């Protein structure tokens, strides 16, 4: 779920905001609008040229006029072509511009939103907003909006011309607009649920297909082929049946809309024909009237079909602005100063913390203070709150109560970027980015030289492996690249962190997938680094073996700091520590 914004706009308001964002592309928009109006005028003028050619040319036997009208028609066609092009092209350019701006804004927002927001938002939903929702908005600007504007202009223009030519005949003709409009509106309203149902059922059907492609081994191993086929067939039949419902609905509407338009033509021919016979109307006028009639139905249908698209665009705009407007919970406080040097005294002062939306506190009254150059190990069961403690130091979250201080200064007094750039953290879960191994290690410092990258890779005990690959540091990893084992990924993550300008280092269970021998080697290298380069280091671990070297062990249980001391001290004093130790000796890995 994506969180609601501070001030949620109602859909029409969001759409209005989309329209206002066209202001940045005002010349393109004006160009598109003018082209659209001129195009409508050019369309409206063509039947008049017919009339002129027939009445003044053919009927009177004036070949000059005939040729002139033919020439004028070609001229009008050139104009139409240019205006048509201008309308589509400028509208598209403006809409692409708006989409570009929106995508930049939403992306930048997503990158800056706090951890607590991302804990609750789903990646796939955010992705939908940046891709398909913005595309809906863009299509609305480039297509639906243009269609509706030119449709309305066409209807108005033709209505005026017809009324000027013969108001009685015009009134008969114009009845086609409300009647067709009514039929269409009824059709869309009655069948919107069926159309949604078709989409939904199609989605279900495709999900089964995809599932069976991905899980083909499981399906075959469990001899499920015929059951899965039955399942697919029954969903397939349901979809076909729903599709037939839409076909029935189409059958009950569109033939009648066409009939309506045809009957109006008959009425025009009848009444207009009688007028011509009575000498009150010319043949050319009658032909022109008929031509206009052909132009009337199209705009009504266009508006009808644009309506659902506009409603969809409004909903999309709502979702997009929801993210754009979302509040960034953690940001620089007014008067924040850059974090420069670290003395190594980190203080947790009666810290309590509750994850937004959670009912229980993840940390309760945690207090401790580190000494310069100290190596602190944090130990606890899964869910005890040990990772939470370390999330508070780089201000991924802000404390609910109490304070976290570095050298006596509240972390909230520092600018976020300076604070975080001095804290090196290796997460529990390793993310590899698509790109080369070198790119991955230099993630935080893209300008790093190959020598620097190699140096940290050596410390993380991954250099030898990397150079054993045919492409070495240029090996592509990530989704479409070479697959790496969990341990190799973790070592790359460690190297990545070592390349930053850290003075505080946090390792969050970062060697869980690395074998014991390598872990020992990494630790030896890190121990040296930690003593030299950092002011304080934290190691979060489940395995006791990895933290025996720590100066002090903090034992966390159910959000509380229950014991602290060296390995030997805790062995003597803490029954919980003893219990964890015992369970780990039995449990391999």
């Amino acid at each position, binding site marked *: 779920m994506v969180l609601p914004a501070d001030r949620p706009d109602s859909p029409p308001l969001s759409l209005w905001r989309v329209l206002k964002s066209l202001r940045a592309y005002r010349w393109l928009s004006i160009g598109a609008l003018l082209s659209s109006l001129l195009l409508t005028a050019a369309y409206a003028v063509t039947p008049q040229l017919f009339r002129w*050619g027939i009445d003044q*040319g*053919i009927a009177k*036997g004036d*070949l000059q006029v005939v040729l002139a009208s033919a020439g004028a*028609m*070609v001229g009008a*066609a050139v104009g139409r*072509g240019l205006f048509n*092009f201008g309308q*589509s*092209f400028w509208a*598209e350019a403006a809409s*692409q511009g708006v989409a570009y701006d929106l995508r930049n804004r939403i992306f930048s927002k*997503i990158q800056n939103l706090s*951890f607590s927001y991302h804990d609750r938002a789903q*990646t796939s939903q955010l*992705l939908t907003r940046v891709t398909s929702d913005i595309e809906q908005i863009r299509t609305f600007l480039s*297509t639906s909006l243009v269609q509706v504007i030119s449709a309305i202009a066409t209807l108005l223009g033709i209505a005026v011309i017809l009324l000027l030519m013969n108001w009685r005949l015009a009134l008969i003709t114009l009845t086609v607009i409300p009647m067709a409009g009514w039929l269409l509106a009824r059709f869309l309203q009655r069948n919107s649920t069926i159309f949604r149902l078709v989409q939904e059922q199609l989605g279900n059907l*495709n*999900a089964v*297909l995809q599932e069976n*492609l*991905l899980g083909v*081994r*499981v399906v075959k*191993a*469990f*001899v499920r*082929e015929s059951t*899965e*086929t039955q399942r*697919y*067939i029954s969903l*397939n*039949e349901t979809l076909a049946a729903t599709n037939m419902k839409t076909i029935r609905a189409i059958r009950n509407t*569109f033939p009648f809309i066409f*009939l309506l338009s*045809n009957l109006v033509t*008959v009425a025009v*021919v*009848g009444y207009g*024909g009688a007028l*011509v*016979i009575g000498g009150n109307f010319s*043949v050319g006028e*009658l*032909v022109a009237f008929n031509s206009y009639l052909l132009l009337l139905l199209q705009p009504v249908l266009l508006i009808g079909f644009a309506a659902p698209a506009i409603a969809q665009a409004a909903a999309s705009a709502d979702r997009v602005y929801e993210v754009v407007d979302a509040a960034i919970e953690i940001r620089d406080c007014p008067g924040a100063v850059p974090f420069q040097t670290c003395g190594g005294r980190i203080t947790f002062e009666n810290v309590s913390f509750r994850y937004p939306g959670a009912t229980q506190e993840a940390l309760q009254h945690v207090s401790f203070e580190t000494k310069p150059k100290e190596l602190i190990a944090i130990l606890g*069961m899964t869910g005890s709150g040990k990772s939470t403690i370390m999330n508070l130091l780089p201000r*991924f979250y802000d404390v609910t109560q109490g304070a976290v201080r570095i050298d006596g200064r509240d972390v909230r007094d520092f600018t976020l970027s300076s604070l975080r750039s001095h804290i090196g953290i290796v*997460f529990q879960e390793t993310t590899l980015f698509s790109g080369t191994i070198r790119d991955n290690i230099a*993630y935080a410092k893209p300008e790093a030289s190959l020598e620097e990258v190699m140096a940290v890779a050596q410390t993380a005990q991954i250099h030898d492996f990397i150079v054993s690959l045919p492409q070495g540091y240029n090996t592509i990893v990530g989704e479409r690249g070479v697959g790496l084992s*969990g341990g190799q990924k973790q070592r790359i993550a460690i190297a990545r962190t070592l390349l930053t300008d850290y003075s505080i280092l946090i390792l969050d269970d970062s060697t869980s997938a690395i074998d*014991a*021998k390598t*872990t020992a080697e990494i630790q030896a290298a890190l121990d040296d680094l930690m003593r030299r380069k950092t002011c304080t280091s934290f190691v979060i671990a489940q395995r006791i*073996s990895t933290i025996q070297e720590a100066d002090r062990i903090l034992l966390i249980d159910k959000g509380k700091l229950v014991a602290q001391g060296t390995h030997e001290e805790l062995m003597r004093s803490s029954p919980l520590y003893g219990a964890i130790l015992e369970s*780990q000796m039995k*449990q*391999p890995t």
Partner: protein
Amino acid sequence: MTSTSPEVANQPKPSISTLRRFLQYLRPYRSELPLALTLVALGAVTQSLGPFLIGWSIDNLIMQGNLTGLLGMLCILCSIYGFGVLAIRGQILRVGWIMQRLLAQLRQDIFTKIQSLPISFFDRSEAGDLMSRLLNDVSTVNQAFGQTIAQMLGNLFSLIGIVIAMLSINWQLGLLSNLVVPLMIFTTGLFARWARARFRVTRKTIGELSAMLEENISSVREAQAFNRVQLNIEEFELLNAANRDANVQAVAITAAFLPSIDFLNTLATAAVLAYGGYLAVTGAATVGVVTAFLLYVQLFFRPIQILSQFYTQAQSALAGLERIFFLLDEPVQLQDAPHALTMPPIRGEVTFEQVSFGYQQNQQVLKSISLQVQPGQMIALVGPTGAGKSTIINLILRFYDVTSGAVKIDGIDVRQVTQASLRRQIGIVLQDNLLFSGTVAENIAFGRPDATQAEIEAAAQLANVHEFITSLPQGYTTRLGERGAPLSQGQRQLISIARAVLIDPRILILDEATSSIDTRTEKLIQAAIANLLKDRTSFVIAHRLSTVTQADRVLVIQQGQIVEQGTHAELMALQGVYANLYALQLGASNH
């Protein structure tokens, strides 16, 4: 992209044979087709008869001042249009029904085919590519043939009717207006080619943009921790701008397409007006003829425009069809032998007799492996990635057939029995525990859809997951989304163990998960697996020390051969490959 874009899929031109084969799908509807086509034709005739009669009336009734004749004509027109409604309604229903049946059949054929293809097909890389496009292809075909085909047929018939009417009224004028058609076809082709090139670029840019988005949204925590936010935003803006520019450039082509067609259209109309005017002035044709003609010319281009737009849509649909037919033609290797027996209840003896195997012809993944496993034994397979561990399992399940040698279960060659009767007695738990959309109970009963609720719960209990399931608000009827969302990896694994428990397999295959799962769940999983292994012959691709120490025998596989075998203790004493691997991969804690 607007609906008028003449975009075509980036595929070679589909052959006539594809179309012919598609038409074969119409066969079952032989008896319905004549009526449907007749209705389409009638609908088209009534639509083109109107202007013809109106033109004729202007010429012969209105110009002559024949009011009664005009009234009569109005009645005729009304009845023609009324009749037209009936024809069009009938046409929408009949054609719609046939197309829906046909598409449902096509989708069903694809799915059935996929179910019958051997695993080897899915392991080939180009097959994966084909699969990802399949969904897309089916929907393109759906769209092109499901919704628009009746309309297109109608337009085609109208076009033919109008051409006939024009030529019969005045053949010179008729030819003149038709002159422009080849020019239009040429223009459409030209634009299609240009657009294809430009849209290829947009497909690339949008792909890059999506990939970047997906990566950066899911790794936003890293971006903030490593101060990469600003850099990411800058990189995104570059790709975003490239995508915008590519789209604008593509639209320059599509935006010029309709105006060009419209221009050609008007050129023909103007020519008719000029030449028709000349004919009328010189008395070679009546005013009514010329007027009717001008109406026809306008009606004439509408279907052409619609058809030219459809042409591009139809082309990509045909390209999609071609890929679909390519899939349907894929040979089903590895079928049951002609007189395959039903596998009798398995005791659990598994024998590999000098088995060699390669996924491709000139490559050997397994080299003459021999192996004898007694019923109830637990075998652990260890070795580096790509050594052939998974291949051994693939052969036991007969996902592949051996190149030489034989795999026997209880002394029966697996090729002599039906695949279904063999696999029904083998259970598997894989690394990525793919669950399916449906309820939790349905997922556990995956291999035995007829299982009772009591059986399902018993299996869940044995798999240590009953408690978790009953803690869910909907219990066993909780619906899971695609791939088992929203359960955690550990929970999915427990359910997949229950799934294997329920079929009570005689042989069990287990590919241990490598990734770390939280300690509590991990313990549940270990205990569940221990329950599952009891009294069954089992093959475990091992990643944990506890597994190898429990195993009756450890097989060390390296480069397609069994290089060492024995118990954990025996192998450690050897101080050979295993001892080495153990230090590197299985990595126990120092305690």
